[in-house]
């Protein structure tokens, strides 16, 4: 008797332990993402040195005095540059997704709600945009507008536009066929009203979930552009460009190329998991 009670308690303990381990595991990506955001925000206080003007002996090793991760070819503290390098990554990836979400979402909303020939024409335009080599589009944007943080954001946003336009269109078309929309139209509300007040609120959530899951893609695309030397603005630190700069030093100071790449990967991983969780919740919510 006592035995089985003990077993039950033990089993319960294991279960709750599993549960809390599951919760902790689920919280981990959010925690990591939060750390990235905080570190970027607090970079001026966290960074031991000025990432741009700092001037020490160049090419110091890791763990040298005062420079935990050493210094680069120009004598700047690597740790400080990594911390400040988080900023453009976050600004570009979040900014680009927000831009693409707003523009692509609005486009898809119009297309899906309008239906008919308008819808067909608008979607063929998206098809054409998708057949346009994306890297070419990004290069053209950056070469035409010049290297700046906003222009990089714009270039990445262009590459994500079709994702949101297509999703928003599909969702809006689904909603537009529903009774409440038909009712609103029958009641004589304008198309604009139908779009903004009836359809939009109902497609916002899945779009936001999708947005979360493409932040990682945006960060990777931005890093690839920097790696190709496009849109970079030295001496401001940028993780993708740090990989490029560090690449030729692989045999001398491998950490200079490896660390920034690792940070990009960890960030992309964390936000991917976050997006995945949101998508799971959305799927279950949608099913119920």
């Amino acid at each position, binding site marked *: 008797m006592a035995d089985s009670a003990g077993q039950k308690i033990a089993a319960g303990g294991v279960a709750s332990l599993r549960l809390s381990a599951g919760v902790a595991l689920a919280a981990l990506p959010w925690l990591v993402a939060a750390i990235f955001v905080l570190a970027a925000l607090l970079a001026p206080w966290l960074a031991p040195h000025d990432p741009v003007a700092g001037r020490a002996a160049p090419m110091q090793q890791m763990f040298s005095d005062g420079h935990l991760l050493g210094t680069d070819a120009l004598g700047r503290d690597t740790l400080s540059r990594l911390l400040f390098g988080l900023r453009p990554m976050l600004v570009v990836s979040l900014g680009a997704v927000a831009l693409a979400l707003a523009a692509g979402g609005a486009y898809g909303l119009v297309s899906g709600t309008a239906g008919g020939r308008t819808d067909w024409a608008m979607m063929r335009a998206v098809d054409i945009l998708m057949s346009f080599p994306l*890297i070419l589009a990004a290069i053209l944007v950056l070469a035409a507008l010049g290297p700046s943080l906003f222009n990089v954001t714009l270039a990445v946003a262009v590459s994500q536009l079709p994702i949101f336009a297509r999703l928003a269109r599909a969702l809006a078309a689904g909603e537009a066929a529903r009774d409440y929309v038909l009712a609103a139209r029958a009641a004589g509300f304008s198309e604009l009203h139908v779009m903004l007040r009836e359809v939009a609120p109902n497609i916002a959530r899945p779009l936001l979930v999708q947005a979360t899951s493409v932040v990682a893609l945006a960060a990777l695309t931005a890093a*690839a552009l920097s*790696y*190709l030397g496009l849109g970079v603005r030295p001496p401001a630190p940028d993780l993708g460009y740090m990989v490029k700069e560090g690449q030729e030093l692989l045999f001398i100071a491998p950490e200079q190329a490896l660390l920034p790449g690792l940070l*990009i*990967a960890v960030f*992309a*991983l964390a936000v991917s998991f976050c997006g995945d969780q949101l998508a799971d919740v959305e799927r279950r919510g949608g099913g119920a």
Partner: protein
Amino acid sequence: MIAEIARRLAFLPVTLFVVATLVFLALRALPGSTVDMLASSFSTAGLRDQLIAQLGLDQPLWKQYLIYVGDLVRGDLGRSFITGRDVATMVGETLPVTIELAVASLVVMMVVGLGMGLAAAARPGSLLDGALRFVAMTLFALPWFWFGILMIVVFSLWLGWLPAFGRLPSSVTYEPVTNFVLIDAILTGRPELIGPWLAHLTLPALTVGLTTAGMLMRLARAGVIETARLDFVRSARMKGVPPGRVFFRHVLRNAALGILTVIGLQFGAMLGGSVVAEVVFGYPGIGRMMVDAVLTRDYAVAQGAALVLAVLYVLVNLVTDLAYRWADPRLRREPGR
């Protein structure tokens, strides 16, 4: 289905026309021109004017555009300002390289992605499932260029297993016929080319294939798990159909729909997006040629490469859609969308 193919193909010229026009305009909106590149090492004002006239760049933009479109309609992609060679020839040399790389990457992606996805779906919620999902997500989150460098360091430099650059070792003489090494090896009866070619292809294909396998794994897993829950699968099981047969005949076939779409999309993306891999591994593909052409303002080459990539993208999508229709009996019966 034939009507659909015809409709899609009929739309192709429209797509090409728009892409051609966009690239034409965008290139000319860029600051700088080929003349600056050509003249940069030795130029007097007179020589520059002469160059501009010779390249036809002194004509009004609309006239240049009409000439360009006229040439296109006749199937003439033009001539490179910088290399003085036919753009069609240059595309013929670089496109097979990119296709080789894309196909090899696709194979890696399918083997790894599907393998992991099916293994994970066999026992959802198990430790293996969790681990595989984590691996898949990590692969997806790796910056391609960084992963490529890492591969070179590990497999070329440290382990010395694989070559890090190019398509063939320099000790081999290779006279291209089709520019596809595999096909040429068969055509010209030189099987000894295949080993070195595969060795050179391995690292770039792994880099592109593995980083894209993550997404496929997740889709394959989700597809299989969801299909397995469906009624017809359950009833098949209850009818006593052997599990293997259920899996292959019912579950996999249905899950294949989503998977096919992803594979098509990814293949299209690989064709145009392999630039980074081509740069890291020194692979002489069309993506790198296109980027270089934009940077040197070699208009004809950039335009030609963009057009060819657009055609390929459309065709790949068309084939994917057809495969999708073929795989899904419900769609097959419908007379097109």
